[in-house]
């Protein structure tokens, strides 16, 4: 193949030749030409199973994953590690093989997303010994949960990120905390005794907390001082939490991003302050982004209570997710709340133009004096609550929205379809 000399400026040639060169470019195998060291690095960024499967791509790739493995700082065991139904034994054998052939003395990440629940003690010890920074254990795909976390996990000083999914969390009696732990994400974790509370108290550097559908919620033993570094907090699910949510959130003195979904929010009503907007008992001064979900008519009422009773003086972005069929909810709610001085962007998901949603849009246009944009996202075709607008009704809805009075002159109202996959 004749090698074309590269120049910075494109050569103006006749159209056919240009097309041909363009096509030749499209057919080139650029990736295999990268130096070994870079390909090793790229392979270390993908799960081990996928990396090993690249051995079949071509002769160049056959042994690449082996050099990658010896030196990688990311150990990513995600997927099915067995060929037969003997998941358990095959998985143990294969992972053991890899763990024992790893040469480097330190690792950054240890990730285990398996479809079975083997004895992970040895592997966790191996990771802790290598001063691992991130541990991610996920047993969502397996039929059983991980019932017991290896005790060695709790004495890992180097840990900065801990992610657990479908496990049982029980702190040992003697727990000195994780001095560098910044991120904790727990999904469907069964929390035993007061493990979560103790974790929060003994991990002073914690910045990012996410609790999704977990079994327990921190009680009153925690003080605001324990939570002072938390910048991002995400809470999903768990109906038995409601009573404690308000109290917990009020202690997150420096939180910047707050997400609350799948939960009843009546913990936000503060007795004695129901009808006194402007007289806020609880202020979260650093919150810049708030994400809330409106599940039903009570949830909607709680939503406005939250805005009335709590103060978010620096709030810039607000995301509201609507449950489908709000037009079928019976009852009326009067929007209430004070002026927002910093709110710039609002996004509403699950928008289909019914009266309660229009009421909320009107409310925010009136109260957000510095508003830039309200984005109204209609549900994707096929999802619950999907409404297909014909030209006429879409036009009418749009007109109605444009006619609403706006406190901020430059505020735009945008309707778009849900683009997420």
């Amino acid at each position: 193949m004749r090698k074309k000399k590269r120049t910075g400026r494109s050569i103006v040639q006749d159209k056919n030749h240009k097309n041909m060169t363009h096509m030749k470019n499209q057919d080139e195998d650029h990736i295999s030409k990268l130096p070994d060291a870079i390909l090793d690095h790229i392979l270390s960024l993908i799960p081990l199973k996928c990396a090993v499967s690249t051995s079949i791509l071509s002769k160049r790739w056959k042994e690449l994953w082996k050099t990658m493995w010896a030196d990688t700082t990311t150990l990513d065991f995600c997927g099915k590690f067995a060929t037969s139904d003997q998941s358990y034994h095959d998985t143990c054998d294969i992972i053991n093989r890899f763990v024992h052939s790893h040469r480097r003395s330190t690792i950054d990440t240890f990730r285990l997303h398996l479809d079975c629940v083997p004895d992970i003690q040895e592997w966790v010890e191996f990771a802790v010994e290598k001063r691992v920074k991130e541990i991610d254990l996920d047993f969502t795909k397996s039929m059983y949960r991980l019932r017991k976390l290896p005790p060695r996990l709790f004495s890992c000083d180097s840990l900065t990120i801990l992610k657990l999914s479908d496990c049982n969390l029980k702190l040992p009696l003697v727990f000195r905390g994780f001095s560098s732990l910044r991120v904790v994400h727990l999904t469907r974790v069964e929390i035993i005794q007061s493990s979560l509370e103790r974790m929060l108290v003994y991990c002073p550097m914690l910045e990012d907390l996410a609790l999704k559908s977990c079994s327990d919620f921190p009680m009153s033993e925690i003080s605001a001082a324990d939570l002072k570094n938390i910048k991002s907090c995400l809470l999903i699910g768990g109906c038995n939490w409601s009573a404690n949510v308000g109290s917990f959130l009020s202690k997150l003195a420096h939180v910047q991003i707050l997400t609350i979904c799948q939960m009843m929010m009546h913990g936000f009503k503060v007795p004695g302050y129901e009808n006194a907007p402007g007289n806020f008992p609880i202020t979260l001064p650093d919150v810049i982004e708030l994400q809330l979900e409106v599940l039903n008519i009570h949830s909607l009422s709680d939503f406005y209570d939250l805005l009335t009773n709590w103060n978010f003086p620096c709030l810039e972005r607000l995301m509201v997710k609507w449950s489908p069929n709000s037009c079928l909810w019976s009852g009326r709610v009067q929007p209430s709340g004070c002026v927002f001085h910093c709110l710039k962007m609002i996004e509403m998901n699950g928008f289909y133009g019914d009266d309660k949603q229009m009421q909320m849009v009107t409310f925010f246009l009136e109260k957000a004096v510095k508003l830039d944009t309200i984005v109204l996202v209609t549900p994707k075709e096929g999802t619950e609550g999907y409404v297909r607008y014909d030209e006429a009704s879409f036009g009418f809805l749009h007109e109605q929205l444009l006619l609403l009075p706006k406190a901020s002159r430059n505020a735009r109202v945008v309707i778009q379809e849900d683009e997420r996959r």
Partner: protein
Amino acid sequence: MASTKKITLKSSDGETFDVDQAVALQSQTIKHVIEDVCADNGIPLPNVTGKILAKVIEYCKKHVEMPKDADDRATEDELKAWDTEFVKVDQAVLFYLILAANYLNIKSLLSLTCQTVADMIKGKTPEEIRRTFNIKDEFTPEEEEEVRRENQWAFERNIKNAEEEVEVRRENQWASEWAFAEEEEVLWQWAFE
């Protein structure tokens, strides 16, 4: 008075770029050249074409304006979004960016571009990977069979349907809880023997 000293960079095909020193210093390679050698006549970069160098400079400019260790989540998110758009380029350009980032020793750009390629590989079967990157399959059927046999588990498909998985979990949840209770009972019995 102006501390914005300008550095001249020369690409392999003769284009020149004048950039602020702070922008150029994002490249460790350039940093060493400036420290060790007199760079008044401009720094030649024989391994990078003008088109790619322009992109690299664009990246460095953005990352000087918005430093990564800002405490503000909003700035972090904005920068991430910009980075995502920045790497939406032709495969050829992407790979030349990798080589340039490697040669110029710009750690964050190398990280970004390599992660982009890794994301293009993740979750694909070998056949799909070959198609995406135009990798020629040179193995004979016997050779291919041998490679497959060596690590057969790596070529097995995972469960594809996420909903399926959750259903399996829910169905068996009662079973696992019950089994757990049984085990505990057995332990207690042993303790009292």
